[in-house]
């Protein structure tokens, strides 16, 4: 099997603080990999190492066959990235933002325009080409960011909380685009705090305090934990690992609030 991502005992330390601790996994090409974990558990740090932006403290890895230490330029040329925070230029129009990223990837003009037209259509941004990015709604901004991440036809798409702050309908539209894309063979690495989204993924990794706790398909996770609710599984992990009192469900919290 061909792997899009293969990492082995990857660690990242900031001073004496270990943000990512000896994690290893392999993701086959064409899959959607959901990377879950509480805030501050090391998801973004892992992603930055995979994208060649920060150097790992130890361990090894290859992304799309390129070495994490030696071939960071090639990695960057072949991945598309969308950040947790809206990272595009609000004072540039939709077109200008896409053109900017297209030119940064050195696309030829005709190729870029054709690709741009396609993406704007898929993302449902037709008619908004000349609007400033800052005037778009949250959902549309995310779709624009997706267009910019895909303009150079990357083989690996990395999405760090792409749907944070996006309404449920727009989230589904967004995911529809993602699944359409994987049909064309692209691999997706996504982090999210929405467990309903996570269940779309082919593989789920769970990271806690820098340690990779589990790597599994959703089906296997459901079987193992005797539930088909990923949120419950997530909470079960956190409460077990943090030895916090079992976290109450929202219903229970509401009831308690009423009793007081």
């Amino acid at each position, binding site marked *: 099997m061909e792997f899009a991502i293969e990492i082995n005992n990857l660690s990242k330390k900031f001073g004496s603080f270990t943000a990512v601790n000896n994690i290893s996994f392999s993701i086959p090409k064409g899959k959607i990999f959901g990377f879950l974990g509480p805030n501050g558990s090391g998801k973004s740090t892992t992603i930055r190492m995979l*994208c060649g*932006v920060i150097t790992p403290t130890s361990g090894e890895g290859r992304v799309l066959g390129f070495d994490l230490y030696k071939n960071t*330029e090639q990695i*960057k*040329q072949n*991945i598309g*990235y*969308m*950040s*947790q*925070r*809206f*990272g*595009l*230029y*609000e*004072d*540039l129009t939709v077109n*200008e933002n896409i053109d*900017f*990223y297209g*030119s*940064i*990837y*050195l696309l030829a003009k005709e190729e870029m325009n054709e690709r741009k037209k396609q993406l704007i259509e898929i993302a449902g941004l037709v008619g908004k080409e000349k609007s400033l990015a800052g005037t778009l709604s949250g959902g549309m901004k995310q779709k624009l*960011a997706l267009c*910019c991440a895909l303009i150079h036809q990357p083989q690996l798409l*990395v999405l760090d909380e792409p749907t944070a702050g996006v309404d449920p309908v727009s989230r589904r539209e967004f995911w529809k685009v993602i699944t359409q894309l994987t049909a064309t063979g692209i691999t997706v690495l996504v982090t999210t705090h929405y467990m309903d989204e996570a269940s779309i993924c082919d593989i789920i990794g769970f990271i806690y305090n820098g340690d990779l706790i589990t790597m599994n398909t959703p089906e296997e996770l459901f079987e193992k934990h005797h539930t088909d609710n990923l949120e419950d599984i997530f909470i079960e992990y956190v409460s077990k690992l943090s030895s916090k009192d079992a976290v109450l469900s929202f219903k229970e919290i509401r009831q308690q609030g009423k009793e007081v």
Partner: protein
Amino acid sequence: MNLKRVLTVTKKEFIHIRRDKASMILALVAPVMMLLLFGFAVSTDVNDIRLAVCDQSNTMESRELIRSYENSAYFKVYTMTDNPQNAEKMIAAGNVKAALLIPTDFAKGLRRGEKEEVQILVDGSDPSIARTAANYAVMISNGYSLKVSSVKLMNTAAALNKSPGVDARAMIMYNPTLESSKFNVPGVVGLILQNITVILTAFAMVREREKGTIEQLIMTPVSSLELIVGKLIPYVFIGIYDYAIVLLLSYILFGVAIKGSILLLTLLGIIFLIGALAMGMLISTFAKTQLQAMQASLLVLLPSVLLSGFMFPREAMPKVVYAISTILPVTHFLIILRGIILKGVGISYLYKTATVLLALIIAIIAITVKKFTKKLD
């Protein structure tokens, strides 16, 4: 370094500037406003200095001398008195800024064809007025072929104690009417070139970080060198535009023409501009937000205005302040500007200053590069 990427960044930066009102104003309008402000308003020219006259001679000759004071635009006879002590009192009270004392036997000597002496009292509490008043007085009296026995400063701020005559001669050689706009305007060119560029560059660099757009950008193949060069190019153009417009307006509005070589001035100006760009970048390595960048810029810009010799002569500064002024590139660039614009001197006179300027700028660039590479790790 890929040229297409660099130009892509440059194009984007131009769009930012075009769409941001504050940047546009700072780049295009502020230089003109600063020139007008420093050229007209902050004029250290002293006109209509109130003069008390104590004419103890009371002769045709003495009245003629008084008239020559009156006829100059510099002085205005405020009051006549018989008593020299009265004149001193009036200066102390602030009623007049200067007093002209003509001794009783003034005319006698003149009639015999001898040189005669008058005394001038100047209120020294405002040094810049005092300096000019004293200079003007000496000038007028000399014109009348008299010997001014002494220029005595009253209420003196200590700084003025050195002979003003020497300064006066140097100024008079190149700026015969002693107009301060002639002296200020070349300095404004330097300040504008530096201040606008430093602020805009620091802003441009910090903006990407503050808005979070840098996070997206570092995931692309663009290198930090491509990014920095691409971002700086627009500010080189703006700097050159500001330089040209200010020189042009200086000529049109203030009649300040470049006596020396424009080519030399422009060459040294570009070196200075590169230093200003580096300073802006250096600030951006410390500042996290545009507000912080603004504050840090002011920290650089205020000393440039106050200590560079633009407003106050450096010779009069305490040693420590003088030392600080020496490490400001703008200090040396001002000497170059005034040298080339007012005096028309060439590189043979300026090579020392130019070397110091170059050394300072290389030092700034070195620090900036070091800070930057460290930061990217």
